Each structure stands twice: as C-alpha cells, then as structure tokens.
C-alpha cells in the first residue's frame, strides 16, 4: 500500500514517462500492431501538424495502476483508454477525465453519445467524461461440422430454453454441448442490472435462474465442468477448447474471432456459424456492450490536438481496429471492411457468411453498457466467487445468490458513504 503512495509521489517510471514532449501522447491497452498503430498512422496523414506517440499498457491490475499513477503524477499523457467500468468510474470521479460535454453536444456526428437508453458514453454528474470507441455484441458460435453431424438447425431466433435443449442435442461422448450458459439476468434486465435504487438488484429471480441453469447444465453434462474451467484456468483460454472441439456452443464476442481464421496458428478443420444471443422471457438485451472508452487527460496542454485525435478515432479512423474484433462504436465502416477486417483473408473458408451477415452485419442488438458503477469491483468479485461455488456444486443457487446480494448491498452502502 505504501508502494501505492510512493508510486503516486514518484510516478511514471518506465516507458512513456518524463517531461512534456511535442507529440500527442496516447496510452492504450491494445498492442500497436493490432490496430492502434494504423489508426495513428492514418491520423498523422490527415493531421501532420499533430505528431502522435502511442504507448501500450497491459490491461491488468498492474498496468492500470501504472496508468493511474502516471496520470495522477503529471506524466505526459494526453489521451488514454479505459477498459473496465470500475476503473472508469474512479478516473472520471477523481478529476482524471476532461469534460467533453460541450464538444459532444456541438457536434451532430457525436449526438448519439448523449443517449442514455443504450449509453455509449460515461456521464459523471451530467458531464460526458468518456466515449466508447468499440461495439462488442455477443453471439453464439456453432461448430458447423458437429452441428451438421448432429442434425441440428442453426437458430435465427431462440430462447434460453431452446439454447439448453440444443446444447443437450449437441452433447456427445467427446464434446460438451456448450461452454456455459449466457448471462440470463443481463438478457432479461439490460444495463445497470445489479442495482435497484440504493440497493442491489440480486433479489430479481433472473439472477438465481442464471446460477441454477448453469449448475443444472453442468450436472447433466451439457455445459463444461466447472472443475475443469478452474483447474485449467479456462476462462482466459476458452478458444483453445472450442478449437479442439471440447465444447460446442460458444457465447462470445467479436474479439475472439481472430482465433478462428488462422488455421496455421490455431489449427482446426471446421467452419463457424453465428446465431444471435437467446432471449429470456421475451426480453432481448444483448450480453455485449459499448466498450474501450477513450478519455482526455484534463491536465493535457494539447487539448485541441487530443480532441482532434479522439474525434478522428470515433468518426473515421477506427477501421484498423476491426482486426482485433472491435467494431467501431459509431459504425462508419462498410460490410466489406468488417468482413475483411474481422474474418481474415479467407472468410468463406472459415465462416458461414450468411449467418455472419444476418447476426453481425444486419442485426442491431440492444447493447447493455453499465453506467451505474457503485462498488462495481466488489460486486464483480462477489458474483464470480459465488458463481464458482455454485457451479462447482458446493453451494445451492439460492444460497449463493443471497450471499451475493448481502455482499453487494454492503459494498453499495459502503461506497455511497465515502466522500
């Protein structure tokens, strides 16, 4: 902890530190080679008067701490990215994000960022502090080879019960039907689903339903055993088990498509088809969200250059980010650009293009981006811990969700008491 204070006093050790330079300093979590490098290059062609230096930080606890201390200590950072909601609330609420309200309001291209139904921005006390650069809808991937062997139809619309029965039909001796169940409460409740007034919302039955369905699917062998997920740290490497056909249905987002179009690097011999996320009780919120929020350091002496960069990224420059599976938050890309950007050089070889067009290009799913973030990291941990115990079969779903509710209520109360 003392190291934290010491870091706050002596910040910015390492790359990107030091005094003010002439170039616009941009910090992001995506490696430059995965898109940002090309965005910067395109920006500099259009705005040669604004040289840009892109610095990558690793988007984990340590990397974010490095960014926080650098921002706090006055390291030369003009524009930076925030990927987790918890960090965004802290940064925006601690004076580390410039107020972009006037710029957004004045620009007709950016008015959509003022939408609060399906928010694409983070608004702190009525001020726009962060703008989403990416749109990451969830969908369900099918292994076409195994689907056809099982004689299962590719769904174009389905319910969570149909998802479950499909997983059952796809389960064989060698392949589990699904990795896990999609987030039922999210689909039913949409954004900010953890909160209800000044308490948590875990009394809503959809949360217990999610825990229960997941546990039952694991118990009947139609979802991946959670002991294996934990023992092999599979949550971070789901793609490996999908590629080796250990499980079939995979509810995921575009950022994982990069593993599916390079059979040399990630060997597999099947095509992948797309189905939309299932619905719950007629509700159809998508488990994905607007994400990859861009923010401007309020201490930046190069605000105009920083804003030019932010606007460029949002409105015309984000195409290179498609290769990392990041659809631009404002669209502005053609279908062909999306296909070649996200599905590699031989899309027809690895993907069922009809279903891709239907589910990704033509659909307009309702994305649920959380903007209420009180006690967010604590609640995230409580949900994960209790879900693990429930899906390991050690705790009843009702008991687990009640524990989540108790911990979440305490976290909300504690954080709302803080100055």
């Amino acid at each position, binding site marked *: 902890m003392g190291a934290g204070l010491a870091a706050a*006093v002596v910040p910015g050790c390492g790359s990107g530190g030091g005094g003010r330079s002439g170039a616009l300093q941009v910090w992001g979590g995506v490696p430059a080679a995965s898109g940002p490098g090309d965005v910067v290059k395109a920006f500099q062609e259009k705005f040669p008067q604004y040289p840009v230096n892109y610095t990558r930080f690793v988007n984990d606890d340590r990397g974010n701490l490095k960014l926080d201390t650098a921002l706090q200590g006055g390291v030369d950072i003009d524009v930076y990215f925030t990927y987790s909601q918890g960090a965004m609330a802290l940064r925006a609420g601690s004076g580390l994000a410039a107020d972009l309200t006037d710029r957004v309001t004045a620009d007709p291209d950016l008015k959509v960022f003022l939408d609060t139904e399906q928010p694409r921005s983070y608004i702190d006390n009525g001020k726009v502090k962060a703008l989403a650069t990416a749109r990451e809808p969830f969908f369900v991937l099918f292994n076409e080879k195994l689907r056809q062997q099982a004689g299962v139809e590719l769904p174009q619309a389905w319910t969570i019960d149909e998802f479950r029965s499909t997983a059952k039909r796809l389960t064989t001796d060698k392949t589990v039907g699904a990795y896990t169940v999609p987030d039922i409460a999210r689909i039913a409740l949409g954004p900010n689903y953890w909160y209800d007034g000044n308490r948590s919302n875990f009394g809503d039955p959809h949360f217990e339903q999610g825990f229960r369905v997941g546990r039952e699917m694991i118990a009947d062998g139609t979802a991946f055993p959670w002991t294996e997920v934990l023992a092999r740290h599979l949550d971070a490497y789901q793609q490996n088990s999908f590629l080796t056909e250990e499980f079939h249905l995979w509810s995921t987002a575009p950022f994982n498509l990069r593993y599916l179009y390079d059979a040399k690097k990630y060997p597999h011999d099947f095509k992948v088809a797309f189905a939309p996320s299932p619905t719950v009780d007629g509700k159809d919120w998508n488990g994905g969200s607007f994400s990859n929020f861009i923010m401007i350091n309020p201490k930046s002496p190069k605000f105009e250059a920083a804003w030019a960069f932010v606007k460029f990224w949002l409105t015309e420059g984000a195409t290179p980010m498609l290769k990392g599976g990041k659809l631009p938050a404002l669209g502005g890309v053609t279908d062909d650009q999306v296909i070649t950007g996200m599905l590699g050089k031989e899309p027809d070889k690895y993907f069922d293009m009809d279903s891709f067009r239907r589910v990704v290009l033509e659909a307009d799913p309702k994305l649920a981006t959380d903007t209420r973030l009180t006690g967010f990291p604590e609640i995230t941990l409580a949900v994960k811990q209790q879900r693990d115990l429930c899906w390991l079969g*050690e705790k009843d779903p009702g008991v687990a969700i009640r524990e989540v509710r108790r911990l979440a209520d305490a976290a909300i109360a504690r954080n709302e008491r803080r100055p």
Partner: protein
Amino acid sequence: MATAAVATASAVRTEKAPGIKPRGWIGFLFIAPNLLGVIAFTLIPLISVVVLAFTDWNLVSGLGGITFNGIDNFVAIARDPGFWHAIGLTLVYVVVSVPLTVVLGLALGIALNRPLPGRAVLRAIFFLPYIVNVVAIGMTWLMLMNPKAGLVNQVLDAFGIRPGWFASSHWALPALIVMAIWGGVGYCSLIYLSALQDAPRQLYEAADIDGASAWAKFRVITWPSLLPTTIFLLVTLIIGASQGFGLIALITAGGPGDSTTTISYYMYQTGFQFYRFGYASAIGLVTFVGVLVLTLLTWRAQRGRALNE
C-alpha cells in the same frame, strides 16, 4: 622496548583519531546507493502505510484526495467478516505448513548428513524448489493437481481418493499447503545440514562411550544444538507464510469462493482491486503487529526451552 612500542601505538591511535569523521562519510558514500534504495523502496512505503492506515484514499484521487478518518479503518476491520476469515485461513496455513516444513526439513537434513552415495546431487535436487521461479512452480503444480488428468490424482485413485485440489473450496488451501511444504523442505534441510555439521563431535563420542541410544543422542545432543537454527527457521517461515501471496495470486486468485483468500491476498484485493488504499494499509498494519507478536511468542518459547536445556 615494550613500553616504547605501547607508547608508539598509542600515539598512532591518537594521531588517527581526527581522521574518523571523514572516513565515516566515505563509508556512507559507499553504502549510499543501497541506502537510497532502502529509503525509497522500504522506509518511505513503510511510513506511508502507517500514515495511510488512518485515511480514506483511493490512489486515483492523488495526494489531495487523502482524507484522514481517525481510527475508522480499525473499527471497520474489527467488524469485517472478510478480514477475520482471511486471518483464520492464514493461521491454518501457517500453523500447518510451518511445523511440517521444519520437521520434514530436519528429517531430510539428518538423512542427507549421512554418508549416502550421490549426496551432493541429492542436496542440490532437494534445494531446487527454493530457487525455481514461482510461476514455473505454480504451473507445474496446476498440471500435477488437475483433478481429472493430474498425476497426483492418478496415484491417489489407487487409494480411492480424488480430491478437487484447486477446483474445490475444501481442497484448495490444503493444496497450497502441500506446495509450500514442498518448496520449503529443501531450504530447511540445507540450513539444518550446516547446523548438524557444526554439532560438537566430542559429545557424540562421549555418548557412544556411555552406550547411549540413537534417540538419546538426538534428544540430548542433536536437538539442543539445533535449537538456534530451529528458532531462526520458525521465525523466517512464519513471517514468509504470513505473507504468502505469489502462488495464491497465480493459481487460485483467492478462490474458489474465498477459500484461499489469506490476509496478504485480501489486502491486495482491498487495495489494488477495490482501490481502498487506506483500509488496505490498516489491514497491513494490523497484520504486521500480529506477525510480530506471533514471531516474538515463538522466539520466547523456544528461547526458554533452550535455556532450560
């Protein structure tokens, strides 16, 4: 002649006395790089923890965001079930892993002290876990203890046992304890080995002449001569086990549930995941005092026994 020599030596000492001060400063210059490091990376953080323990601070708000809140953090700690759960787990971890590591280290040290073929190689092999990178250790044990395909469970299957290890809230802590013991035994054995080689030979010879049994020689000669080493090992192992973090962060991240959230990991979560740096510092301070008390009690208990012997 002798008087003259003494007088000369005295004169030399008198002449050199004024030179002590400058030599002292030169000494400081030699240790300055290390001293600066200690001040920057140990002393300042240490003082900071004490100060921050009485504040509410999220780091991101900067030094201006520090709010002093008196003893609120300590009152909150007293009422925090998560803290007491973490303390309980840490005590289990320390109380089980440290004595077993010492006992097995002693047994191994005695075994390796005998004239065995390939003794030097065996010593190196047993010491290896102590110097291998923690990530390599963690990944290896993760594979060995895979509940379905791991080597450990394949062996245990023969006895009808199939623990869930890191995928079970009941077995994850025992699994970490097994790893801690495995990692510490070689180190203990090496320390014991050097102590055993310093044990007074004449006492063993006298005991042999008196016809003492092996157990009697161990109880009366070996064990008392190893007591200072044992105290050293207990103190360092207790401190080390209380601060156990690397393997937990790497393998279990405190889970499943909170079954391996020991006090060090709880402090990390509170500070670096929840950004409650003031509260995390207070936990650090309380833990420091706890470990200090535990260490002093151990030291005093062993010291008393050594004197009685």
